[in-house]
């Protein structure tokens, strides 16, 4: 069993016990524990079930590479699935549950898959769930869905907050082990601004566990001293609990800081996403130990040798009373020594390497009386939910059992792989190191930045320097190189001297034993989380999935949440073996950020709830809100769709607003309409190019409706242009169009006609604009008093500056409703007061506010088009019968040439018409008109579609506009629109102007 030792545990604060819950059971640990070490201290080795076969799985590692120990953390608004127990710091009151099992962790029904495993090889799902097709939806999908996914999705809203932070530095060092610390110090000595981030809560990485000396002192002292030095340097920032998540173009790095995961009651954001821009980056991300591939290597109790050592040294936890070490290198001997010194039994060190020159480690093993079995391997591990023993065989053989050893833990080491992820994220290339059997960064092929130079340097174990002395030398050089790359002069210093015992060379072992039989290979796991075995990769190779990227997807090797941190190299080597190709030629799969999963909250940062997106509010927003506004998003603006009164439906409100505006007086908040000032001697010429109609001939004091097209000829915007003076125009754009059209104007002015004398300014938000609409419009303005708004003084399509009711105002006599209408602009800061004045003065004239739906109906009754309804980016003005707004005199305007293309002049283009249902009902929006015959796909031909459709209370019937083939030539014809509701709507093609065709009402 695994248990807490009486002594040891360098990271524990033993006078601070904490209690926590796992699957409802109350357990104890100490401050400084990870959830993994605390579970192990309570003999909770079994933490989950595997994904496919639901095999019992225990903790394998002690850090970010852990594939099995994933749990659901927290409850309600703090619930989060798939949290790694090895990187979760223990805190008082922590509550976790295991996942991926039913009904319980100890007894799982899905384990049946385990007995089926030989019927569920790689590609099983692809091969099995193909036929019959009828089974897809009702049999296969429910089955796969039930089996799919790890953990549970949270149900409650996340109660925590998150944030981003933009940081800048000359040198960013990722990883706070000895290499990172030394590289940071070396770089900082040049004067460069250095930031050092470390994913755990501790500095020094694994050096304090592995031992050695630096300049004669224990390595812990070096760590402590260097951290203190760095902390005292003004130009250095240290941040622990901050993982380098990804390296991106031009020195951009995402850092993932976990602020309150270990202290959930603390105030402030839970996670902070650091968006760092660095001049140069050092990846000092260490190395990860590899498992060995032997049968039963996934049984709880089989663990990485380094992890076993970590649990003893860091957290005072023994994994078992009797631990067999199995290795292909000297490093794992350190685990044997650590266990022995802790008073635990090590029945054997099974060393796959044949006996040869005795290394210091082997000599020490001998001195400690440890049994070393050279040239041996594990044939299979015995046990089910826990290791009970191992069967020993010759490594060179096929697995004939020579001996069985009783034990309750196995510590394995297949060698080490540098963590090259961050080096590789942005294109850093790798080189294969034959002697140490790993991929390491190819120094000459670093990712390149904006200036074309490499911007990442790997340091220490991450660059392949596994031995302390090498790592320190490498890190020192990396620190100097980074300082230089960032534009500083590195100070001439010497690297500190690290010392550890010499090691005998490792021996690559990709299968144990080398000639393992098929049944053994089918029990030798590569990817623990996704249940991929040696036999699966071999099968993939046999079935022709020879590319590493194909084999990965076929077997799902490395596709789990750990992204193959343990399985990658073993899988590649297995594939290379099956293909009889050298490993470097097989290559690696692509390393993609993030290094380990980061929270969705951190990615979103502050952008949630009220600031999820920037809502734009008019000056009268709050009034609308308290007066029943049903909001409609228009771009980022919010506009009232209708002002709904108590007891009314939204539809009732819209109908009331239309009738009232036609009969009495309606007020519309039109502040969202874009307003662009265009000024200069060439302003008229410029607007002639931008609009299809002639603007240069407009007289000051007058207004003109204009259409704007892109160079493709398509309509992009419309609005009323007012000429303010000889040099100045004010162009109205659609709501939400102001920024786009402003940008469009600037683009042409800056990139094509840069010699034209025109300045543009966006003054949209300077004004609150109110449309005062209806037969009583003039009466309310006259009651407020001020400027002359009579027909004689201010005719239709004219504007004037003046004062109304004491407000300085600009009044446009324009109408989008067909009624007598004034659009009045006042300074935005006076918008609410002006609105209040209009409402008060208008009370006796039946003033009511109206919303966008009423506006739409009013304009549709008049046959006015709406950008975004009648247009969709493929519509030219000619399609909409707007030829009257296209100047024939102008030689050029944006879109003119395009509108002469054959497709644009094709008489078969659908044209705008009015549509009147035969029975008075309302056509469904977007409905297509069916024609004769079928198209090449056997679908019914279509001859038109509805672009706008409403119930008109004015006419008491449904009215619509649509684009119809040969529409204008088919007046009076009835065409049919099949609806999605099963009904077919018959509609007559009519003139799009349904109401007041002569325009008498607006011109009074």
């Amino acid at each position, binding site marked *: 069993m695994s248990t807490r030792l009486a002594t040891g545990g360098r990271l524990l604060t033993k006078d601070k016990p904490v209690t926590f819950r796992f699957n409802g059971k109350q357990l104890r640990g100490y401050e400084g524990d990870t959830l993994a070490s605390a579970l192990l201290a309570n003999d909770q080795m079994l933490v989950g079930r595997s994904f496919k076969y639901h095999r019992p799985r225990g903790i394998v590692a002690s850090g970010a590479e852990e594939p099995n120990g994933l749990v659901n953390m927290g409850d309600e608004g703090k619930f989060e699935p798939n949290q790694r127990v090895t990187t979760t710091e223990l805190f008082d009151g922590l509550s976790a549950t295991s996942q991926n099992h039913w009904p319980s962790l100890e007894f799982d029904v899905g384990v049946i898959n385990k007995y089926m495993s030989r019927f569920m090889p790689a590609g099983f799902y692809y091969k099995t769930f193909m036929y019959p097709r009828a089974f897809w939806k009702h049999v296969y999908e429910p089955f796969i869905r039930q089996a799919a996914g790890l953990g549970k999705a949270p149900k409650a809203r996340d109660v925590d907050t998150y944030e981003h*932070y933009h940081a800048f530095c000359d040198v960013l060092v990722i990883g706070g082990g000895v290499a990172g610390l030394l590289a940071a110090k070396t770089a900082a000595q040049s004067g460069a601004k250095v930031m050092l981030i470390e994913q755990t809560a501790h500095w020094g990485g694994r050096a304090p566990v592995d031992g050695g000396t630096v300049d004669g002192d224990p390595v812990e002292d070096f760590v402590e001293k260097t951290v203190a030095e760095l902390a005292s340097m003004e130009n250095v920032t240290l941040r622990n609990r901050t993982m380098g998540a990804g390296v991106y173009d031009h020195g951009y790095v995402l850092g993932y800081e976990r602020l309150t995961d270990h202290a959930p009651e603390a105030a402030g954001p839970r996670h902070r996403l650091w968006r760092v821009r660095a001049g140069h980056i050092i990846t000092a991300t260490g190395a990860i130990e590899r498992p060995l591939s032997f049968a039963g290597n996934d049984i709880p109790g089989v663990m990485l040798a380094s992890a076993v050592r970590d649990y003893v040294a860091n957290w005072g936890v023994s994994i078992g009373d009797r631990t067999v070490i199995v290795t292909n290198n000297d490093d794992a001997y350190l685990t044997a020594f650590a266990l022995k010194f802790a008073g635990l039994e090590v029945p054997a060190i099974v060393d796959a390497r044949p006996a040869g020159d005795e290394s210091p480690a082997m000599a020490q093993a001998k001195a400690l009386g440890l049994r070393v079995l050279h040239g041996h391997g594990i044939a299979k591990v015995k046990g089910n939910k826990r290791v009970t023993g191992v069967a020993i065989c010759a490594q060179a053989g096929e697995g004939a059992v020579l001996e069985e050893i009783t034990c309750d833990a196995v510590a394995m080491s297949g060698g080490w792989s540098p963590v090259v992820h961050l080096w590789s994220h942005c294109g850093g290339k790798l080189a294969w190191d034959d002697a140490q059997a790993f991929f390491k960064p190819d120094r000459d092929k670093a990712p390149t930045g904006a200036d074309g130079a490499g911007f990442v340097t790997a340091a220490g174990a991450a660059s392949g320097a596994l031995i302390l002395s090498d790592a320190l030398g490498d890190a020192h050089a990396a620190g100097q190189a980074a300082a230089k790359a960032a534009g500083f002069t590195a100070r001439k210093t010497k690297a500190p001297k690290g010392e550890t015992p010499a090691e005998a060379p490792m021996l690559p072992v990709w299968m144990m034993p080398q000639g393992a039989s098929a049944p053994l290979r089918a029990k030798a796991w590569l990817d623990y989380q996704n249940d991929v075995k040696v036999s699966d990769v071999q099968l993939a190779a046999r079935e022709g999935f020879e590319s590493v990227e194909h084999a990965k997807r076929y077997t799902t090797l490395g596709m789990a949440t750990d992204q193959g941190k343990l399985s990658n190299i073993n899988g590649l080597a297995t594939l290379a073996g099956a293909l009889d190709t050298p490993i470097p030629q097989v290559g690696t799969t692509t390393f993609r950020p993030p290094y380990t999963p980061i929270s969705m909250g951190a990615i979103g940062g502050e*952008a949630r709830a009220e600031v999820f997106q920037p809502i734009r509010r008019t000056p009268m927003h709050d009034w609308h809100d308290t007066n029943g506004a049903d909001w409609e998003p228009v771009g980022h*603006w919010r506009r009232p769709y209708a002002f709904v009164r108590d007891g009314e439906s939204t539809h009732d409100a819209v109908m009331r607003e239309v009738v009232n505006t036609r009969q009495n007086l309606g007020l519309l908040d039109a502040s969202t309409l874009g307003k662009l000032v265009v000024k200069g001697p060439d302003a008229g010429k410029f607007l002639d190019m931008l609009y299809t109609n002639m603007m240069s001939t407009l007289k000051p004091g007058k207004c003109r409706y204009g259409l704007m097209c892109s160079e493709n000829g398509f309509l992009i915007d419309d609005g009323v242009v007012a000429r303010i003076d000889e040099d100045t125009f004010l162009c109205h754009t659609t709501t939400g169009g102001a920024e786009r059209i402003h940008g469009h104007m600037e683009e042409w002015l800056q990139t094509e006609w840069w010699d034209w004398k025109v300045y543009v*300014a966006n003054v949209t938000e300077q004004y609150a604009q109110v449309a005062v609409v209806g037969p009583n419009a003039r009466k309310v303005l006259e009651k407020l008093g001020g400027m002359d708004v009579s027909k004689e003084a201010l005719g239709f399509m004219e504007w004037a500056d003046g004062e109304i009711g004491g407000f300085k105002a600009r009044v446009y006599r324009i109408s989008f409703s067909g009624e007598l209408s004034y659009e009045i602009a006042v*300074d935005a800061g*006076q918008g609410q007061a002006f609105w209040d004045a209009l409402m008060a003065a208008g009370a006796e004239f039946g003033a009511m506010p109206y919303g966008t739906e009423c506006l739409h109906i009013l304009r549709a009754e008049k046959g006015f088009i709406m950008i975004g309804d009648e247009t969709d980016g493929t519509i030219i003005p000619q399609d909409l019968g707007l030829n009257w707004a296209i100047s024939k005199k102008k030689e050029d305007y944006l879109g003119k040439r395009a509108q002469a293309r054959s497709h644009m002049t094709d008489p078969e283009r659908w044209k705008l018409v009015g549509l009147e249902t035969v029975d008075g009902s309302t056509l469904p929006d977007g409905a297509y008109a069916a024609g004769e015959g079928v198209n090449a796909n056997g679908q019914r031909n279509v001859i038109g579609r509805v672009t706008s459709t409403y119930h008109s209370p004015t006419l008491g019937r449904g009215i619509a506009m649509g684009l119809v083939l040969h529409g204008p030539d088919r007046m009076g014809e009835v065409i049919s629109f099949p609806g999605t509701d099963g009904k077919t709507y018959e509609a007559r093609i009519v003139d799009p102007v349904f109401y007041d065709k002569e325009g008498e009402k607006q011109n009074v």
Partner: protein
Amino acid sequence: MSEQATLSQTALGGARYDAGIATIVEAPLQGMITLRGDLASAKVKNAATGVAGVDMPGQRQVNCVEQSGIAWMSPDELLVLCPYADVAANMAKMQKTLGKGHALAVNVSDARAMFHLGGTHARDVMAKLAPVDLRRDQFTPGMIRRTRMAQVAAAFWVDGDDRFSIICFRSQAQYVFDLLKIAAQPGSEVGHI
């Protein structure tokens, strides 16, 4: 004019927040005039300096004394700051100085909202929202930066006490205020700058 000025309201009516790690205050109405023209021309320079009473700023600089100042916004654009009540008079004065030359002066006072952000953590709070190097030796008093704050455009400058003046669009004032509040929430100290 004065009667009009008293009628005018800022976007958020002087909202403030001081329960967090920095104080956020919506500024009172601030006169702002966008001036576009050839910044090398004496007329344009005089039009700006004549009403602001400060020297012409250099590229990406701002000269500001209390409510009056000039900010360099782009190679052909200045933002002239003045007391809100003086805008109309100043516009007239500027037009007179500009004469018939090709230039554009428009009142944008009501189109903007302005916030002040202060306190020892003000730089860190801004760094959460803007992709700008805000370290004290990099972003110094006298500089103006046009950039984005989270999802919207903004411009800001800082004084020697790390007090920021932030300008955004009026319609987005509530969004920017909410952003600043979240970035300044209690317990969110960064201690980076």
